[in-house]
């Protein structure tokens, strides 16, 4: 009997070892399969308080040594920014697409340029560009000074002949004075136009948001739901991998799996596999005011954005290693959106400048026409030009509001 029991025990023990081995093997295989198919958050683990320290606002706005801040230059830049005479049609200003009433964007899925040309990508905000490098969705410009001139001269955007803009601005007496104040005898030049606008743009900084007050110690500044969203942002949802720091961007480039044929940064860096379909990570400051989202405007609201990152992306070789299925619940997705809503500042409305008038002296009245207007420069195109009512289209704001 004992022998029998021992035998039974032996079989059981043997099977137990086998079962254990099977369980361990199955566990390892399952672990490997899970690792291969569903990466999980592998970033830094910090407490909420430690994470909050990563988002403290900077004390000063940085300006480059070769284009330092002066109040006069920023004011001149602001005037130029809102002056539609900087476009070939004299109809589109920088502010037409970068509208302060829409968090310095245009609220459209894709930008609209010269002659109502629909552009290839969404208009990015110009908030907080003082901290940015590699401007544009594809990062093709190194500095803000370079970037300013890009859209101005692009035929599909502002369509300005750069050699003509200097002549046009020199024909406006007040601009001569303003440039002289900022740049001395150099006066009106293409680089100085760029420097002035870049200086103004560097002053466009998102204001204090409820999130900033919470980071500064006001626990009541944001809801518990938003605080849970902040925790997810820095952990399970892995948003922090790219939207890091006070400006909620590290200015990096990633393929986030948007289903389109635009290769973005890949055009600039054709030999770098991971840059194919990669686009610049935008700031999330004031993001709730800047729908639609993504470089192609394909996400209509923040819930669509979170759903994309959760599991809605296209898998392809260039997909960023930071993009993987998040398995966020509906409640967690709502928490993330609640958190992003706390990033908006309640800034005062931006006042439009009074633009310098054309020369009203006898010497400036050559042929009695607007000296800055070029032939065939109507941006609305031949079809729409017929229906235009010039008498209702005075000034930048009316241009934008009434004439579009």
């Amino acid at each position, binding site marked *: 009997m004992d022998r029998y029991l021992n035998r039974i025990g032996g079989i059981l023990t043997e099977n137990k070892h086998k079962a254990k081995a099977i369980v361990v093997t199955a566990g390892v295989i399952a672990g490997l399969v899970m690792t291969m198919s569903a990466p999980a958050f*592998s*970033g*830094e683990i910090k407490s909420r308080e430690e994470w909050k320290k990563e988002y403290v606002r900077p004390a000063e706005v940085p300006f480059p040594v070769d284009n330092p801040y002066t109040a006069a230059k920023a004011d001149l830049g602001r005037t130029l920014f809102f002056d539609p005479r900087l476009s070939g049609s004299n109809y589109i200003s920088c502010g037409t697409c970068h509208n302060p009433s829409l968090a310095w964007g245009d609220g459209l899925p894709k930008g609209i340029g010269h002659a109502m040309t629909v552009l290839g990508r969404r208009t990015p905000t110009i908030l907080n560009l003082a901290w940015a*490098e*590699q401007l544009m969705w594809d*990062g093709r410009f190194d500095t803000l000074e370079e970037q300013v001139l890009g859209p101005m001269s692009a035929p599909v955007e502002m369509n300005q002949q750069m050699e003509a803009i200097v002549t046009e601005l020199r024909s406006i007496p007040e601009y001569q004075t303003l440039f002289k104040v900022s740049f001395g005898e150099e006066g009106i030049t293409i680089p100085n136009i760029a420097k002035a606008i870049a200086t103004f743009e560097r002053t466009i900084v998102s204001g204090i948001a409820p999130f900033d007050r919470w980071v500064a110690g006001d626990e009541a500044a944001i809801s518990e739901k938003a605080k849970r969203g902040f925790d997810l942002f820095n952990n399970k949802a892995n948003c922090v*991998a790219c939207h*890091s720091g006070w400006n909620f961007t*590290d*200015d*990096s*480039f*990633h393929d986030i799996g948007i289903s389109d044929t635009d290769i973005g*940064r890949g055009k600039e*860096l054709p*030999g*770098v*596999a*991971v*840059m194919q379909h*990669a686009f610049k990570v935008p700031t999330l400051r004031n993001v709730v005011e800047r729908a639609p989202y993504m470089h192609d405007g394909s996400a209509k609201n923040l819930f669509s954005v979170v759903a994309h990152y959760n599991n809605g992306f296209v898998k392809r070789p260039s997909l*960023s*290693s*930071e993009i993987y299925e998040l398995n966020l619940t509906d409640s967690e997705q709502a928490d993330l959106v609640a958190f992003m809503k706390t990033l908006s500042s309640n800034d005062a409305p931006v006042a439009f400048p009074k633009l310098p008038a054309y020369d009203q002296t006898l010497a400036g009245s050559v042929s009695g026409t607007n000296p800055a207007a070029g032939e065939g420069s109507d941006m609305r195109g031949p079809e729409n030009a017929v229906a235009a009512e010039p008498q209702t289209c005075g000034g930048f704001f009316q241009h934008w509001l009434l004439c579009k």
Partner: protein
Amino acid sequence: MIKLRKESRTMKIRIIASIATVLMVAFGAAASAAEVTVIQKDKKFDKKAVTINKGDSIKIVNEDSIAHNIHSRGAGKFDLGVQKSGTSSSHVFASDGTFKIRCAIHPKMKLKVTVK
């Protein structure tokens, strides 16, 4: 018999000399080709600039929890590909000059390499 011993000794000396030569060349090469280590941490390089000699290499270590992709454009351009967390990559600089190295993913990460 004596002649054979002499030949054997000569052979031994030759072998030892050959080994010594090989070792000297190997150690000499190792001594002249240095490797400078650069750490990537918090989306930054731990150095802004390094100066090395022609034939030296730079070993770039990723101590971040995210991936990087070191590359250089222009003359002598190279791309080390995606470098995952906890891994390192090396590049030998075979020609002199100044090289601007960046992370393609995080272009704010910049390293200037001067090769003499």
